[in-house]
């Protein structure tokens, strides 16, 4: 499977998001902006839920390139400690159990699981707190 775009996450297993660090101020953003002002910086895999909402209707196409079939999904802002608060879908989660502050880890998911050659996009999934503590 291919990434939805070049330069968003590393080739490692498991992967990390690639942010950008401002060479002057040290400010960290995602994704890494083009140009010479930012240097690429792999971000931490784990964070906590800063805020979220649920996308309850299918977005218009274009620009949305996901499947015609629609099921609601959670859109989150995930705080990666000391780095940035990153926007991402949540995956492997019951929409009724989402709580601000819950621990999360990066996952890559297909944008259209039914496609012949689906593209991968970034998401976060809940971490078992005990697993997170021993990781």
């Amino acid at each position, binding site marked *: 499977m291919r990434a*939805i*775009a070049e330069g*968003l996450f590393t080739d490692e297993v498991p992967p990390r998001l690639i*942010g950008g660090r401002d060479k002057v101020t040290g*400010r*960290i*953003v*995602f*994704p890494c902006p083009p140009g010479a002002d930012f240097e690429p910086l792999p971000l931490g895999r784990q964070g906590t839920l*800063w*805020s*979220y*909402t*649920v*996308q*309850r*209707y299918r*977005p*218009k196409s*274009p*620009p*949305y*390139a*996901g499947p015609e079939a629609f099921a609601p*999904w959670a*859109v*989150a*802002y995930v*705080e990666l400690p*000391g*780095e*940035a*608060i*990153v*926007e991402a*879908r949540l995956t492997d989660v019951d929409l009724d159990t989402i709580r*601000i502050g819950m621990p999360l880890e990066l996952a890559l998911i297909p*944008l259209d699981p039914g496609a012949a050659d689906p*593209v991968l*996009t970034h998401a976060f999934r809940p971490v078992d707190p005990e697993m997170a503590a021993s990781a």
Partner: protein
Amino acid sequence: MSDVCIIGIGIHPFGRTDGLSGLDQGVFAVREALGDAGLDWRDVQFAYGGSDAAGNPDTMVERLGLTGIQFINVKNGCAAGGSALSSAQMAIKSGAFEIGLAVGFDKHPRGAFNALPAEYNLPEWYGDAGYMITTQFFGAKIMRYMHEYGISPETLGRVSEKAFRNAVHAPHAWRREPVALDVIMDAPLVSDPYTKYMFCSPAEGGVALILASEKKARELGKPLIRLKAAAMRTRPAGSFEVFAPSIDIKRGGSATRIASADAFRLAGIGPDDIAVAQLQDTEAGAEVMHMAENGFCQDGDQEQWLAEGLTEIGGSLPVNTDGGCLACGEPIGASGLRQVYENVVQLRGDGGGRQVPGNPKTAYSHVYGAPGVSAVTILER
């Protein structure tokens, strides 16, 4: 320095008007404002016009008269109307002109705004993956705010309930039927925690304001509605804006906070001195957050304010007396000027069933839009 005064107001009803272009609705509003001021188009020396999706405002000279007038188009997102007004005020304050027009109109297709990544300097994947959705931002922003400051979903519902109730008495509003709180709360979710009654819709409409120097307003024998402040500002570092693939760990202020502080400084008064306020309410939580961002209460106080009805027409600070964006819809170019129109109505005592009691002498308006722009005005009678 002497003040700039608003001497004429006109509005084309908001909502959906099949068969009339956005420009038509702008021209309608200008003619109403001229009639209200008792002036002819030839008396108007300059104009600033805002429209986001309904064509270039200056083309209305074809309809109003080819007088050779200076006419500058303003495109500044949701702050277009406020920016037009701010610019018009400065043109008169500079001494270059004595009578001018600020006009805004728009006509948007039905349904949610359809934004494309390239328009916002964002990569294509951001749209492909389904993030180019304004309601996602609104939902995520209020979720965090509710978590930090203890705001309940019912408070969001009360904002919408108030909007539709006030709009019953506003002839220019779009949705003028009351909606019960339980209907609002039980309606389908659009983007959690917001139900469909908690978002405004893109719409149509036009608003025109005729401005004059204080000297000219006195010559014309007009009641002096003074534009004490018109401030337009952009975002500071660390703000949270629509279409953000990431935001800073170090949280900062907002365009609203600095525009508001600047407007109060210019007017020489404070939030406690304001008798009526129109605050940007593209979604119910926006009104809640903007109550605090504009300095009217502390973060978290809104829970009690809404429960006690302090922002109702008869409350200590009536907010969105014509139903705001929630009931009027949002034609982007006209929306900010609608707020000022409503404030002039209130200061003149012409609000009818929605009139704020007690002879209000000060009125405040606030717009906020993408990506982090805000315009604030303060009127005094």
